[in-house]
Each structure stands twice: as structure tokens, then as C-alpha cells.
């Protein structure tokens, strides 16, 4: 299984996608900077507390890597069906369930790590900048930082699960656009702000429920693959 995952990474040149992750991170930082200056010009503080900063960072990171996940699903799975290379894969002496399973595991881990590390990275950047420019009025408490790490972990896990939902639309239509558009729509629904910083994501049951649905979709996709005509 690990070998299959390694081969997927090599075949799709996932290594070079690290660049895309870094660029996305810089983009998020750019956006946050914009928000900061826009709010300041109106005399408000964009990040009144570290806690509100953590929330905003996490929203951006989750939204970004949900889309990334759908792009990887498109590349690793939907494209293989469209280009018929999947018939090549299914002629190898390897259990088909393992082949698809390893692809989905790559997507899941990739999303999980991206959300986790990007959150950490941007928080560190914010902290460093705060020391110099005094961006957040209150100091960062260690206890708040630790509590937030726990939240980031849950957020990464639920995003990785939710990120698998576009697989359903992609496999149904065997279409790359369907995969990515469904991710964007899902994003819009889940992260849009109702005011006062509340969104569907804040109801704990929603992200966890959606993550479970994502994993279920992955399971159902794999389950019957050995009896299907290619």
C-alpha cells in the first residue's frame, strides 16, 4: 500500500506540487494583510484577539485546501478514468481496491497535512509580524496556542474527509470540472459567513458529519470496483 502511494506521488509528480502549496500560503497571507489594512483604514482591528485571528486563518486554509483536494482527486482518479490509463492500472497484478484505496489515501493525507502545516506556518508568520508591528492588541497566551493546535488538528481531519465528497460528483459524471465545481460549491455552503463570524462550520456536527460522508463516499467508490466493467 505504501509502495502504491509512493508510486502515485511519483507518477503524478506530486513532489513539485509543494510549490503550489507554498504559493497558496503566500496568497492567504496576502489576503490577510489586505483584510488587516482595510479594517485599519476604518479604524477597526481585524484581529482583535489571537482567537479571532486563528478562526480567520483556519477558514482561509480550509477553503483553499478543499479545492486542492478536488484537484488531486481529478488528477489521480478522474483523469485516469478519462484517459483510460485506469485500464492499464487494472491490468496489473494488484487488487483494484488497493489501487483506488492508495490514491484516496494520498489525497486524504495530502489535504490533512496541507491544512495542518499551513495553519501552523501562517500562525507563526502572524506571531513574528505581531512582535514587530503589533498587529494583535493582546499577547499570545500559551494556553490559547495549545488549544488552537487541537482545533487545527480537528479542522485538518474534517477537511481531509470533506475533501473526498467531490469524488462522488467526479465519478458520477467522470468529469474534472464536476469534481472541482462541486468542491467550490461545498466550500461556499460550509464556510460562508452569516455575520458575527458564524457559519455552518461552527456547528460541530456539520464538519464532522460531512467528513464522515466523504469517507463513506470513498468507501463506496472502492467497494464495488472489482466487478465493474472498464
Amino acid at each position, binding site marked *: 500500500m505504501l509502495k502504491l502511494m509512493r508510486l502515485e506521488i511519483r507518477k503524478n509528480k506530486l513532489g513539485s506540487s509543494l510549490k503550489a502549496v507554498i504559493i497558496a500560503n503566500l496568497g492567504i497571507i496576502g489576503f490577510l494583510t489586505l483584510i488587516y489594512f482595510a479594517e485599519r483604514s476604518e479604524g477597526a482591528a481585524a484581529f482583535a484577539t489571537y482567537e479571532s485571528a486563528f478562526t480567520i486563518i483556519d477558514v482561509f486554509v480550509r477553503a483553499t485546501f478543499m479545492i486542492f483536494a478536488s484537484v488531486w482527486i481529478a488528477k489521480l482518479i478522474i483523469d485516469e478514468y478519462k*484517459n483510460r490509463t485506469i485500464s492499464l492500472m487494472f491490468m496489473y497484478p494488484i487488487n483494484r481496491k488497493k489501487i483506488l484505496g492508495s490514491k484516496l489515501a494520498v489525497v486524504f493525507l495530502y489535504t490533512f497535512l496541507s491544512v495542518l502545516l499551513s495553519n501552523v506556518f501562517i500562525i507563526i508568520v502572524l506571531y513574528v509580524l505581531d512582535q514587530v508591528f503589533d498587529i494583535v492588541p493582546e499577547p499570545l497566551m500559551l494556553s490559547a496556542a495549545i488549544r488552537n493546535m487541537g482545533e487545527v488538528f480537528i479542522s485538518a481531519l474534517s477537511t481531509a474527509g470533506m475533501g473526498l465528497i467531490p469524488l462522488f460528483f467526479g465519478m458520477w459524471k467522470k468529469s474534472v470540472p464536476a469534481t472541482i465545481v462541486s468542491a467550490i460549491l461545498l466550500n461556499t455552503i460550509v464556510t460562508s459567513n452569516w455575520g458575527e463570524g458564524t457559519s455552518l462550520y461552527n456547528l460541530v456536527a456539520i464538519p464532522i458529519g460531512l467528513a464522515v460522508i466523504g469517507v463513506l463516499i470513498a468507501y463506496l467508490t472502492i467497494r464495488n470496483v472489482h466487478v465493474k466493467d472498464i
Partner: protein
Amino acid sequence: MTYILRTVQLTKTYDGHEVVSNINVNVKEKEIYGFLGPNGAGKTTIMKMITNLIKPTSGEVELFGHKLTNDSYEVLRNIGSIIEYPIFYDGLSAYENLDLHCEYMGHSDKRSIDEALELVNLQHTNKKAVKDFSLGMKQRLGIARAILTKPKILILDEPINGLDPVGIKEMRDLFKKLRDEYNMTLFISSHILGEIEQVADTIGVILNGRLIEEVSLEAIKASNPMNNSLEDYFINLIQGGKRYA
């Protein structure tokens, strides 16, 4: 007589329409079996059922004496194939594609990659991505990939499509070499009679999803002392003798 590949009453139905009907093919070890039929006769569908890509509606496939099931995959280790047309990860080079093939096949001898590329005259493509290959080059690379791990049986769907006359001759010689020196069995489909005639030991003729004849080339020659061309023999067969009656 040992058969390396057999199909028993193999049938495939799509939406109530029978594309392949009760096919019984018997391929002996170390022979070249020419699978002859016009376009759309069902050759590719049968080959896909043999490689387990498509599941039969009824009937079965027997490879190396074992029945193929939905869950079979170990058996694929001993099959090399090109089905329909050669498919590659076309952003990668020829070598990278074959290297991946080795990895997935669990074949550790990387020297065989260069050997296979040399056998089909593709040793100088270096870093060129497969998407920039001509159809003939892709066809050659497909054959290189199929023979790379020295499987016991090769299943090649229209392998000479897109090759020039020199290439066709080279492939013909290569097929015979694979049979004689590497002891491989080859199951080759084609709609070009002249081609099959020159390499095959046994010929199966398929028309509208039915196998209408399975005969060794020697038997045809023996039964046809007047030495009409093979072409006449088959056109006669396919048209039910109407044209030459």
C-alpha cells in the same frame, strides 16, 4: 494438448444486445493465434474479457488452467497486453513509463527496460514525452511494455496499426522471435488478413460476435491444394460462399 487460454461459451450483452455470443477460443501454448475479424466484430470486447477489464455476461475465461473470476488479479502477472490502442502516462517519457510498469508488475530487473526499448527500436527517445510520439512509436512502445516482464502470453489488439511497412516487417519478425526464443504464446487480433496469414499458426475468425471458424493454418493449406489465396478462402467463409458460389 495444453491450452494456455480458453474461453467457454463466452458471451457479453450490452443493453439486451449481444455483442459477443458463445465464443469458444482455444489457444495452445507457444503458438501465435491470429484473431481475425472486421472492425466492430467484437475482438476488443473479447480481449477485454480475457484481461478481466470487462466481466462476461455468461461463459468463462480460463487462463493457465484456472478460471478467471472477478477477484483474479495475480494471473495478470503473466499477461502482457495492448488492448484497443496503446495507452500511456503521456506526460512521461518512454523510459519512465516502462519504469513505472516494472514497479507495478513487481519486476526488479531494470536492465530489461533498455533491452525492450532496443527490441522495438526506441532506444533513442530519451526524455521525449510520449504525447509527442507518432502512432507508430506508441504502438512500438506498447509492444515494448507488453514484453518487458517476459510474460507467458501476449494479448495484442491490432498491434501493427499505424506502423510503416518496415515497422510491420520488424514486428512480424519480433513476434516469431518471441514465440521461438522466448517461448511466449501470442494472441493477436487484426482485421488485416495478409498480416495474420504471415505470422499465425492458428486462426480464429470472428464475425458479428460469433466465432465462425477456428483452424490451423496448415489445415487450411492442406484442404486447399488448388492454392487459392487465403484471402479467397476467408472472403468465401465470411460471405457464406455467396460471392464465389
